[in-house]
């Protein structure tokens, strides 16, 4: 399946992907109104290595998802390879945050969990972080499955 991958040699460390992510999942149509003066809780996180290299981390939609296996509310599931959260069922226990080995499940600021769902459930339709990356450092492509 297609997943999000990063090309760290192209990453500028500009954090625009974080803002595009927060906007895409805000449900609003105006980016300024959606984000201005607000603390954002993006589902993608830009990291900086000790060597100064930067890259963005988001859900790997992994083969053996510990978040799905660990969810105490049965709110996380894998459908056609995409790991998604049923926000109706999530009670905000944050067990998924405790078990995700990549730190890709994030508390949303109101106490419940959220994660990258590849912009499948918002109006963007394709990953906003990829579309908005000014230097092509985030790609959405097929690279096979884990063995």
């Amino acid at each position, binding site marked *: 399946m297609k997943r999000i991958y990063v090309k760290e040699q192209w990453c500028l460390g500009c954090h625009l992907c974080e803002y595009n992510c927060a906007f895409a999942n805000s449900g609003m149509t105006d980016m300024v109104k959606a984000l201005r003066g607000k603390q954002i809780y993006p589902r993608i996180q830009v990291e*900086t290595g000790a060597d100064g290299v930067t890259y963005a981390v988001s859900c*790997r939609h992994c083969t053996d998802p510990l978040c799905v296996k660990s969810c105490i509310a049965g709110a996380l599931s894998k459908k056609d390879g995409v790991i998604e959260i049923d926000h109706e069922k999530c009670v905000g*226990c944050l067990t998924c945050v*405790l*078990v995700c080995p990549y*730190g890709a499940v994030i508390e949303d600021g109101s106490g419940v969990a959220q994660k990258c769902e590849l912009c499948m459930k918002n109006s963007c339709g394709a990953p906003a972080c990829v579309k908005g990356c000014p230097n092509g450092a985030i790609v959405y492509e097929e690279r096979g499955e884990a063995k």
Partner: protein
Amino acid sequence: MKRYVIIGNGTAAAGCIEGIRSADAEGSITVISAENYPVYCRPLISYYLEKKTDLRRMHYRADSFYADNHADVRYGIQATGIDAAAKEIMLDNGGKLPYDALCVCTGSAPFIPPMQGLETVQNKFPFMTIDDALALEKAVTPESRVLIIGAGLIGLKCAEGLHGRVQQITVCDLAPRVLSSILDDKCAAMMQKHLEANGIRFLLGTSAQSFSGNSAVMQNGETVDFDVLVLAVGVRANTAIVKNAGGSVGRGILVDDACRTNLPDVYAAGDCTEYHDISSDSVKVMALMPNAYMQGHTAGVNMAGGAALFDNAIPMNSIGFFGLHCHTAGSQPEGCEMYEEADDSHIKRLFVRDGRLVGFMLIGHMHRTGIYTALIRNRTPLSEVDFARLKIEPQLAALSAEYRDHVLKGAV
């Protein structure tokens, strides 16, 4: 066609069904369910009282779960015995059920120590099942004074669930601190202060010595009057059925990394078991929902002829009260090194032994903590990571470049 039988219908059983079906689409699956409900999320009963969920949303799986997996659930029936030689189980309705592979997922039951006069208390409840929560909900009124015996995970979640529905909540525990099974003194003190600020009253280091109707006399001499009593002292693994069949049983049913008991073709999973904790290198009961699922799934794959191992189990808990959250994992062995960061609203304690992270306690700030958990589960030597950076914040950037590439540049 293989015949699979599962005793119990909780999370471990659901994991077992999914594990079997990942390896065998054909065999028959029969589930013996003592409770008259499809698999539901037990830890959510406090959220139910708090009205953060409801009975429908508490279902662990979709309504079509059993049908989709061709599993036949027999509700309201208990298994009474296992004949390991004949490979069949006995049922309380007099029936017998043959199996080719059996998984015991009998869970645990409230442990209620003998307390003088307990029989004189009318309104008393354990807090384990949906039926317990529904009965408790019926018994309380806005005027109720509630006494909860036990300041562990169950007792405190019950207190949070009842908060706002009753007039007064008092929690007592023989231990000198709250959440004594997962927090040390300093972390427990922060959580207790927060709970007290939300109106929960504590009597610690003492428990009820005797009851007379709606009054309890504590070991320290204090008298507590109440309208409703919740018994949340602790739980015991339901092991009898395996023990009576000649299986190895300690505090739980002993299982190996493949979730096998010592009886042929008999597996066990979930709160009824004891198993290896890699963080302390000891065998213990770790009655945790994530582990229950992973054990059940492992057992299911192996029952169906596959090869699965759950060989990196650790205790771990994510729990919060009134908006203050806490993450704990692994263990805090004697003589370990500790790294600490703390202020008025958060604590981070990381425990290191023999060059590996073996445990942590975090209160207040829960961001990407799974990166720490993975260091414990993977037994990552800290010499291979930038621990000075990791201490400050969990991040992949502090792990090796090879690992980072592996995670971010291909499917994992």
